[in-house]
């Protein structure tokens, strides 16, 4: 019963206030400093191994100093840095593909998973096929994707969608199965029809799992995107990484890799935020738990 927001009463906390509360709390806790320390340790070790001691095979790994200098160079040696429009073109093309693939995977995967969890007949009908296709790695689909889809874009988007779809559908199904059977029973007692139970109980009840699935799915999308771009396509971060290898521009490989990491992290953070926004009840329960 999503009724228009009633006049804010004393007991009611707005979504935005709740959001601010959580993030100011996160900033005050020791975690940001631990996070910085973790990064410092990681980059420090990389720097020492590759540039200072040139230890063993790490000698052939471009060091962080070298990568940073190239990355922030207005006149990059290998033609790729924060100052070259090409760099943003690669990011934008990858981002666009992930967005399209993620949208398709979510649009198909959530309803598919909901029906898998909701209807036994439907599950017995489709789940075995689904489970047989799921373990086939994205890379194994590459030849077929290129044969089946014309052009550069569609095969890459198809491959990216595939793995995301599995993650979303499977988690959504588990979400439906995780719902306490008392909830649909209670709703039936209160006079809800089958469809109303689906809309008011099954969908919101599965939402926590759906968002877990979406977070995995967006990560998997980046994972398979880069693999797909290495094989096909002529722009994108995966393509950049692969072509830099072919052209012996090793620091650019690392620029590409770090960029995937940053954009990927940002996209799953966005999904998490969207989840928090849609599940205020959960955010508030958790916030209450912290206070206790």
């Amino acid at each position: 019963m999503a009724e228009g927001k009633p006049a804010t009463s004393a007991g009611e906390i707005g979504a935005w206030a709740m959001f601010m509360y959580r993030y100011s709390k996160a900033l005050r806790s020791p975690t940001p400093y631990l996070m910085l320390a973790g990064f410092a340790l990681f980059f420090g070790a990389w720097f020492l191994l590759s540039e200072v001691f040139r230890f063993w095979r790490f000698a052939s790994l471009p060091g962080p100093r070298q990568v940073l200098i190239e990355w922030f160079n207005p006149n990059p040696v290998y033609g790729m840095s924060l100052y070259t429009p090409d760099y943003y073109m690669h990011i934008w093309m990858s981002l666009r593909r992930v967005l399209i693939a993620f949208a398709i995977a979510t649009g198909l995967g959530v309803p598919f998973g909901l029906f898998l969890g909701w209807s036994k007949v439907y599950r017995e009908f489709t789940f075995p096929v689904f489970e047989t296709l799921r373990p086939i790695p994205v890379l194994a689909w590459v030849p077929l994707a290129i044969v089946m889809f014309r052009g550069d874009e569609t095969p890459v988007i198809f491959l990216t969608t595939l793995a995301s779809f599995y993650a979303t559908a499977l988690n959504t199904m588990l979400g439906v199965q995780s719902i306490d059977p008392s909830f649909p029973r209670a709703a039936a007692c209160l006079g809800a029809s089958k469809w109303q139970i689906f809309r008011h109980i099954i969908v919101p009840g599965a939402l926590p799992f759906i968002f877990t699935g979406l977070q995995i799915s967006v990560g998997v999308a980046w994972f398979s995107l880069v693999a797909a771009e290495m094989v096909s396509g002529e722009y994108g971060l995966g393509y950049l990484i692969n072509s830099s290898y072919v052209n012996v521009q090793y620091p650019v490989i690392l620029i590409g890799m770090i960029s995937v990491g940053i954009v990927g992290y940002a996209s799953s953070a966005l999904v998490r935020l969207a989840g928090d926004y849609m599940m205020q009840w959960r955010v508030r329960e958790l916030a209450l738990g912290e206070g206790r």
Partner: protein
Amino acid sequence: MNARAQAATKGAIRIQNVDKVYYAREGAVQAVSDCSLDIRAGEICMIVGPSGCGKTTLLNAIAGFHDITGGAIHLDGELLCGPGKPQAEPGPDRVVVFQNGALFPWKTNLENVAFGPVVQGKLGKAEARDKALGLMADAGLSGTEHNYPGEVSSGTRRRVEIVRALMNDPKVLLLDEPFRALDSLTKSVMHEALLEIYYKNKVTIFFITHDLEEAIFLGHRVAIMTTRPCKPKKILEVDIPHPRNYGVLTSPRFRSLMEETVNAVHEEAVKAFEAGEKEM
């Protein structure tokens, strides 16, 4: 003065020779056998029996969560389930309050309470909201309307759930050990709250418990059930007049009723325990 004297004329449940056999791993299990029980309109009927004796099976059959394999159940003369119709349809005339609570955690308390009439299309959202606010205020729940169930105490959640059931003007409330998970102090508060709600809304209450004190304190009658298969072993009239309050607990009449019940129940508990050991 006597609650039952001025009680509503609706909500009489007639349970006639009900059988329920279900099939589990160890074969056919007779959960309920030849069980007959008349629940009068507007009374609080307490169903007492050892754990796993089949009380909940009976409740589920009345609620329409599963079928019966023999006999019939009527509500106010209308067939709920019986010959030719093994399973009743769940509906807002018989609302269940569940053992572990079933408030929808993604809806606020107010949305939970207003849910029934809105999905049935009986009331518009605004009307349902007003009625819900009124009932919640009556039950002492003002101030928790816009909280989610996860934000309030377990006692409050129970009260919200009972109010959610009453929103539908049910003929019967089916309560399945609703206060089991509460600590004993909260429980005693809930008992008085339930009676208060009951005095305001005359409704038949079918209340499963294995807490004898609870049974005698709340009930007009206490039906003591045999262990599996489940049927009434003894039906006790609790002749302590309503309205009751916690003072009743120390009265001599309460004590003697308690004694009578303890003996009957203990016998069944021992049987259930021995049967349980055999099953393992």
